[in-house]
């Protein structure tokens, strides 16, 4: 262990010096104002059309109900709308605004929308060249000729990666709050959010529904985002060990993540797609009570699948990295 800490320090500083984290912050600084502006426009339209959030919510429920009464809409789609109607109705019945216009609520929905694509993308910016980058630049030889066990080197890379994943999730949340708060106001920490909706078929069981203050909800959400981002990071580390070029490693991981998003939206009939890691990334949906992409998926199931993929990738990464010959 005595040699590990300097190694972690070395890897952490290497990522910092490569300015990858600055790129992430820059992307956030550009994108968050764009989304904030879009949300502001929506809020302005709603304000013009509706006197009160109750009216807006009632109208939204009514629109869903009208869609449900149509014969031309696919059953799968109806099912998710039916669930949405019941949740909105629950909010309405308890006089809680699910879309209160404030910085915290905006941050909450931004984070949960970002979990399947945006966060994996940010994570890949750091993870994809951790090993393959050293190969491309040739520094891997210097790294491996030092009198350090190879597994320690990979482990230190993994720890540094974990550090940056944590920082990315937290910094995203903080930046989003600071930027959107300037427009929507810095309040909303104590607003109750309902969680614990149990989905059964096309209806929800509300006996376990309870309210948590929004700050706690955000904390839980961030924790779940961290877990799915870490899974992507560990998989990317494996790909980066296996593939020689950084761009090939990014493309491979992006393809995997994007295909998961597409599968989630069309996999109602292909049930075994639920074993693919990228279909399970939207952990925050379980918290919000949205229907999972494939019926029968639960939080426990998704966590198991993600853990399985992560464990396999770790095993592959370490066994390959410790045995691999380094040639140019």
């Amino acid at each position, binding site marked *: 262990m005595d040699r590990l800490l300097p190694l*972690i320090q070395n890897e*952490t500083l290497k990522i910092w010096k490569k300015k990858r984290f600055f790129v992430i912050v820059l992307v956030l600084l550009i994108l968050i104002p764009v989304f904030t502006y879009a949300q502001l426009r929506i809020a302005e339209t709603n304000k013009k059309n509706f006197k009160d959030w109750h009216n807006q919510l009632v109208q939204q429920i*009514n629109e869903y109900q009208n869609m449900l009464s149509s014969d031309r809409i696919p059953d799968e789609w109806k099912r998710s709308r039916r669930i949405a109607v019941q949740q909105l109705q629950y909010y309405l019945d308890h006089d809680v605004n699910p879309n209160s216009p404030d910085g915290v609520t905006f941050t909450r929905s931004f984070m949960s929308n970002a979990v399947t694509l945006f966060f994996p993308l940010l994570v890949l910016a750091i993870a994809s060249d951790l090993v393959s980058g050293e190969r491309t630049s040739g520094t891997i030889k210097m790294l491996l000729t030092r009198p350090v066990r190879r597994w320690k080197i990979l482990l230190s890379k993994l720890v540094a990666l974990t550090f940056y994943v*944590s920082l990315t999730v937290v910094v995203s949340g903080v930046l989003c709050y600071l930027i959107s708060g300037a427009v929507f106001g810095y309040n909303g920490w104590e607003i109750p959010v309902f969680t614990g909706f149990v989905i059964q078929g096309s209806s929800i069981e509300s*006996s376990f*529904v309870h309210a948590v203050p929004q700050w706690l909800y955000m*904390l839980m959400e961030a924790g779940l985002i961290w877990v799915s981002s870490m899974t992507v990071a560990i998989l990317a580390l494996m790909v980066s060990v296996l593939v020689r070029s950084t761009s090939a490693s990014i493309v491979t991981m992006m393809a995997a993540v994007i295909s998961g998003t597409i599968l989630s939206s069309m996999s109602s009939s292909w049930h075994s797609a639920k074993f693919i890691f990228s279909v399970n990334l939207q952990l925050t949906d379980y918290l919000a009570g949205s229907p999972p992409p494939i019926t029968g998926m639960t939080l426990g199931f998704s966590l198991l699948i993600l853990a399985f993929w992560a464990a396999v990738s770790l095993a592959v990464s370490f066994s390959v990295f410790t045995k691999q010959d380094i040639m140019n």
Partner: protein
Amino acid sequence: MRTLSSANLWKFIGIAAVLCTVMLLAGFGYAVKDMLYPKSEAYSGSEDLPALPAGGNLSESKEINVTAIGDSLTKGTGDSSGEGYVKQLVALLKTKYPDTAVRLNNNLAVNGMKADQLAKLLDTDKGYRFALRQANLIVFTIGGNDLFQIAAGASPSRMTGELKLDKLQAELPQGLDRLDAITKRLNAINPNAHVVYVGLYNPFYDIGDYREGSLQIQKWNERAYALLHRYPNMSMVPTFDLFENTISRYLSSDHFHPNHNGYAQIAARIVQSLE
């Protein structure tokens, strides 16, 4: 930042990252605990119903808030512009009362809504009660689905089978009971608003065998008028005459719902009935 030495930078990143990781792990742990072993505690929200609007004449009130409820006629089905009679009514009210702020509060109509469903919603749905209490003008249509669906055995828009006129007659009392319940509940929710009920018409007037149906529709309209008449703030607007000789002009292609012009006539009649 440039003055930061590598050692200090490492300390800064390392400590920040460890703190973030611990916090996120705690959040994850709490989320798993909360979802796998949920404690159910009932959350009782604070009910804040809006204050009732002042009663009295619409022309004297400061603003007119319109809330529409009912079936596909109120939704505006058949109007290719999507306006229906409700939006046209709001536009007409704006020209009739130029000094008053007129706004459509909510249009909560649902296609295929029947009177018993509406009565139940008025009883249980907080959203309906909220939107209705804000209004000083409530417009609604109901009953068409109750009568024609029962008589045809299917929803009216895809009706192909035969319309059984004797069945229509048999269902009248039940439908009227439901309308009775609706008027009672509307009055309980908002006794100050002006309520306008749009009467029924026979969309099959031009089809030889079903012309007789108009007599049943008129019975419905007559009894409905009696139900509404009990409350001085409620009134009824007839529409049956609009859809007899001018069916081709005012009915949409589904031969059941009015088209844009048909809805325009209904809106005009409602405005005429308001002082």
